[in-house]
């Protein structure tokens, strides 16, 4: 089974090296591609030195565009499984075999912080937001989701194809789930440990979180109303 680990990275020189080393220790057979989204630091050099392939975007295209590039790459090179994980070290590589293993039975496997109680703790506002999105997606897809904003996911061939043709541009996690459900994919959540980020800061500031809530809610509703139609460029 050909497996690709996709790591989008924007100025993550402080953590990318150990993230790649961890992956190579736990799943040595998987290929690793770092999507260097126009970083201004040494992300590219560090990632290459750690033994990953690096795909450098000519300018910063944002998380959605970067992630989609990884899926396009996976589709082009005919991978069976593509796993997306963060470059900041919050997704532990030791959980990878668990995620990858489930792709035999499901189109998408999400590493969730909340299926069982794990050691993950977050701020109250963030929890409220996450509960809101979980309820919204559960309502729209009629499937129970606990962690819709998790960016720790393993995708099979069907999802790789769907994501290569359409992926939301910013704050993509929640909408991309509804999109998959609209296209008849099976999704499951597995409980995974998550760690505090090793370096860098969260991109979500208080001012942005208002925009985040509105934008994501709106695009999720729009996605739910878009019956089996993909926003592919003609």
């Amino acid at each position: 089974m050909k497996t690709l680990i996709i790591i989008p990275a924007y100025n993550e020189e402080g953590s990318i090296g150990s993230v790649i080393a961890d992956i190579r220790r736990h799943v040595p057979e998987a290929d690793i591609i770092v999507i260097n989204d126009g970083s201004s630091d040494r992300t590219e050099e560090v990632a290459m030195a750690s033994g990953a392939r690096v795909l450098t975007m000519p300018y910063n295209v944002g998380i959605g565009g970067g992630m989609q590039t990884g899926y396009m790459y996976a589709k082009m090179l005919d991978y069976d499984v593509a796993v997306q994980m963060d470059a900041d070290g919050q997704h532990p590589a030791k959980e990878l075999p668990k995620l990858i293993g489930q792709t035999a039975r499901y189109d998408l496997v999400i590493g969730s912080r909340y299926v069982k109680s794990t050691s993950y703790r977050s701020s109250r506002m963030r929890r409220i937001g996450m509960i809101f999105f979980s309820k919204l997606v559960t309502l729209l897809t009629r499937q129970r989701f606990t962690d819709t904003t998790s960016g720790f996911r393993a995708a099979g061939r069907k999802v790789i194809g769907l994501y290569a043709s359409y992926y939301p541009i910013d704050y993509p996690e929640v909408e991309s789930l509804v999109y998959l459900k609209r296209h008849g994919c099976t999704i499951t959540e597995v409980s995974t440990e998550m760690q505090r980020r090793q370096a860098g800061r969260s991109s979500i500031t208080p001012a942005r979180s208002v925009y985040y809530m509105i934008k994501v809610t709106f695009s999720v509703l729009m996605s739910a109303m878009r019956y089996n139609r993909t926003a592919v460029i003609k």
Partner: protein
Amino acid sequence: MFINILSVSIAIAFLVIVLELVRRQRLREQYSLLWILFSIVLLIVSFNVSLMEWIADQLGVKYAPAVLFLFGLLFCFSLILHLTIVITKLTSQVLRLTQEVAILKAREALYGKNN
């Protein structure tokens, strides 16, 4: 009637500028048709003030120039909406292009030296 001469010359100048932009290939024919239509309407209205008054009367508008403002605004709004649609399309096309170029460059770095 100074205002008549002024509005007619503005309409004509506008039409000439649009045609000149198309001739110099600074404006696509596709978009220019809309502007040509707009300047012709402007020209007709400038020549024929009573037409405007007649339309206002039919619509029950007491102040005739208000009709002009209404249609002018509606035209601007729909044009801006159209432009944001075009920008959305361009943005997705540029993104797709960027992604494909990035992938091709990475693959060339990987395999290129062997060929």
